[in-house]
């Protein structure tokens, strides 16, 4: 099977998932742009890093599974890695922000 003869029951969910995932990422980036302070802004990009990423990964798994005629699951590695690392980054950034603001108010 090649890329050119994908049936509609693969193309339709894949296209829907791609559009949904990218729009969710855009909403997250708009949250990063518009929210008032850092602790609120930390929540915006989490949309793109969770739901947007999963939608796009599932679309990629659908297309790759049909093209190669076997179950392709290695995209799940990226999802697992982001699940493990995104909270660590957020916690460290929040600690740094708290520390710096306290130190600046003490001066």
């Amino acid at each position, binding site marked *: 099977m090649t*890329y050119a003869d994908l049936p509609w029951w693969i193309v339709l969910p894949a296209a829907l998932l791609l559009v949904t995932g990218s729009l969710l990422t855009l909403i997250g980036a708009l949250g990063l742009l518009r929210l008032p302070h850092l602790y609120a802004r930390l929540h915006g990009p989490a949309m793109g890093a969770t739901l947007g990423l999963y939608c796009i990964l599932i679309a990629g798994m659908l297309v790759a599974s049909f093209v190669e005629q076997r179950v392709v699951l290695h995209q799940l590695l990226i999802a697992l890695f982001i699940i493990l690392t995104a909270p660590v980054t957020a916690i460290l950034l929040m600690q740094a922000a708290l520390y710096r603001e306290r130190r600046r108010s003490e001066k």
Partner: protein
Amino acid sequence: MLTLLNWAIDFSLLVLVLANLCVLFRLFVGPSAQDRVLALDTLYVNGMLMILILGIRHGSSEYFDIALLIGLFGFVSSVAFAKFLLRGEVIEP
């Protein structure tokens, strides 16, 4: 039917470019250093999504390795920046 998939890929790449422009604005304007580090982390994730979408379009699995590496380096650089903001140095003696 392939036209629909190509249209969806083009649309999502365009939307991700718009999202990256928002994040770039925050990266350049962001009032504090923490905001800039957060924007850089978001930029890494969005770039990884763009490369995954390009991998769907070209149907090759090399893009997957690139996306995995970008995720890895994004995590390491964000943790290093946060550690630098917290302590003043990355690797403590």
